[in-house]
């Protein structure tokens, strides 16, 4: 049972106490100045792509035949093909002077649904393609949007079924060494 509050404390007069806010304010001003100097308001992200190297190693003989999906980025169109001819060649002409990234994305979705274990694609851009166009195409190639249908589950390294969160996450530039 709770004790009745002491009458001594329930005072005749309630005292107003001012919090000492000035030192806290000083600290906040210093903190804001530091954070404004140290913070970059430009949010940046990264896209990873391996640098191709020449290798003399033989491909393992028991390895599953890969799709060898290749995207040629020409001056006026995109050409999607498979090195092993497992997918029919598709061409996407430019629409209003820009590459047709939505059509490419749709085609890649179909291919990924058909070949769930495939995760890489080789880019073969023409020499004068702008870097900005490449980044936009990489977005269409790598990322899944919220409206895309769910892709079939894929087993990870531990044998656990996972829902893919990327479309073709590994983009390799295939003509770096050949220079064509």
């Amino acid at each position, binding site marked *: 049972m709770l004790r009745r509050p002491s009458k001594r404390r329930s005072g005749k007069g309630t005292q107003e106490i001012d919090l000492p806010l000035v030192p806290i304010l000083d600290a906040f001003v210093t903190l804001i100045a530091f954070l404004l100097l140290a913070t970059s308001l430009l949010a940046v992200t990264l896209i990873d792509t391996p640098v191709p190297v020449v290798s003399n190693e033989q491909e393992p003989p028991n390895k599953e035949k890969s799709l060898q999906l290749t995207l040629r980025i020409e001056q006026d169109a995109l050409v999607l093909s498979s090195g092993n001819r497992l997918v029919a060649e598709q061409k996407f002409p430019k629409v209003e002077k820009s590459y047709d990234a939505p059509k490419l994305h749709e085609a890649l979705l179909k291919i990924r649904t058909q070949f769930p274990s495939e995760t890489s694609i080789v880019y073969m851009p023409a020499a004068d393609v*702008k870097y900005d166009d490449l980044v936009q195409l990489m977005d269409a190639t790598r990322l899944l949007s919220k409206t895309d249908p769910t892709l079939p589950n894929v087993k990870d390294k531990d044998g656990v079924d996972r829902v893919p969160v990327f479309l073709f996450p590994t983009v390799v530039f295939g003509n770096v060494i050949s220079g064509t």
Partner: protein
Amino acid sequence: MSGVSIPSPGSSGSSHRRGRPRRSRNRSFGLQLTSMMDVFVIIVVFLLKSYGLSIMQVPQQDKLELPKSKATDVFGEGITLQIAQNTILIDNQKVLDFKPAETGAKKFDLPDGSMDRAHAGQGILPIFDVLKKKKEDFDTLASRSPNPADAAKKWSGDLLVQADKDVPYELIRNVMYTAGMAGYKQFRLTVAKQAE
């Protein structure tokens, strides 16, 4: 007698005569800091959140505008290579100046003697020299550490590339080729985050 006010004892009644309310001079004046504190707390929280997102430093460079992307990977460490419209920098040190070509199919003109003619004419010598030196510096430090084998494994070979959005692919290809020859394994393309 109605309408006549009688001053209370102790009051002079002079203020009434002058038509102004009486003011005491020694009243202390307190700033209302609570609302200001609220504003400051909001600013600090916003800045702290932005600070957490921008671990990576992106130095501002003239004639370098990053392309926008919806990619989500935010953390990266490594040697920074910047490709602006007229210059190339490695870790903020200028390595090469060039000028955009005015005519012809080629979109840029590198200075004479900067291309490595021995390796398919694609490597850029000043970039190769600097990247190779940085790799060798890392190897030297690793060899002097108490456990050289473990220290050598820490070499990630990552190159953070910040390129202007209008740079032609040919220049990026040449830089990629050069980085591969110098022992770098991974390009991490730095792009500006696009709002969804």
